[in-house]
C-alpha cells in the first residue's frame, strides 16, 4: 500500500464500521420485533384457548 496505507485502510475501516453498525441495528430491531410478536401470539392463543 506504500505511502497511502493510512488513507486506504481508514476508508475500509470507516465503511466497515458504518455498514456493520447498520446491519446489526437492522437485524436486532427485526429479531426484537419478531420475538415480541411471536410471544404475543402465543399468549393470545393461550388466552383464547382458556376462554
Amino acid at each position, binding site marked *: *500500500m*506504500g*505511502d*497511502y*496505507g493510512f*488513507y*486506504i485502510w*481508514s*476508508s*475500509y475501516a*470507516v*465503511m466497515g464500521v*458504518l*455498514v456493520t*453498525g*447498520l*446491519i446489526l441495528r*437492522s*437485524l436486532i*430491531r*427485526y429479531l426484537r*420485533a*419478531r420475538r*415480541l*410478536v411471536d410471544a*404475543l401470539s402465543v399468549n393470545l392463543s393461550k388466552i383464547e384457548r382458556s376462554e
Partner: protein
Amino acid sequence: MSRKKIDWLQYYANPHNFMNLAQRVHMPLWGLASLALAYGLFLSFNAPADYQQGETVRIMFIHVPAAWLSLFIYSFIAGASLLALIFRHPLGHVAARAAAPIGAVFTLATLITGSLWGQPMWGTWWVWDARLTSVLVLLFLYLGYMAIWRAIEAPDQAAKMAAILALVGSVNVPIVKFSVDWRNTLHQPASVSRFARPAIHPDILYPLLMMGGAFFILFFALLVTRVQAEILEQRLRARYRDPADG
C-alpha cells in the same frame, strides 16, 4: 401502468402477502450479499494499482458503489413515496422510511471515503465544488426525511410530509449526477457509464462492478429486514392501541 403491474402492486399492498415473500427471500438475500461482498473485497485487494492513482484506486472500489447506492436509494424513496401518495400503497411509506437510514449511511460513507481519497490525490480533504456540495445536500435531505418521521407524532401526517420532502428533494438527484458535466469541478466526470468507449481498464472495472453488485444486494437484504421489522412493530402498536385488547 399495465393491468398486470397494478395487480402485482395490489397483491403486495397486503402486508401479509409481503411478509410471506420476505420470509422466503430474507436468508438467501443475506447469504448472497455476504458471498458477493467477500468476493468483491477479494477482487478489490487483488486488483493492480492504477497508473495514475496508484494504490488509492482501492478506495474507489468502495467509494463509487456507495455513491451509486446513495443516489439509487434516494430515487427509490422518491418512487415509493409517489406510489404511496398516488395509489395509496400501504407499503410505499414503510419501504421509503426503511430505506432512508440505509441511504444516509451510504451517503455519509461516500463523503468520508471521497475525502480520504481527495487528500492524497487532490491535496485537500474538501472543496466546495458542485459534486461534493450536492452530495452533502443529499445527506441533509436524508437526515431531514428521517427527522420528519421522528418529529411528527401522527403517522399519516408524518408520512405525507416526508413523502413531499422526498419528492421535492428528488430534484437534487440529477444535479448530483450531472454536476460534473454542467460545471467545471475538481471531481472527475463519469467514467463507468461510458459503455461505448470504456474509460476504465477491465482489471479495475470488474472489481468495481462486483462491489457495486454486492452493495446493491446488501441494500435489498437490509431493506427487506427493515420493512419486516417496521410491519411487525406496526402490528405491535396496533395491538397495544386497540382498546378491545385492554
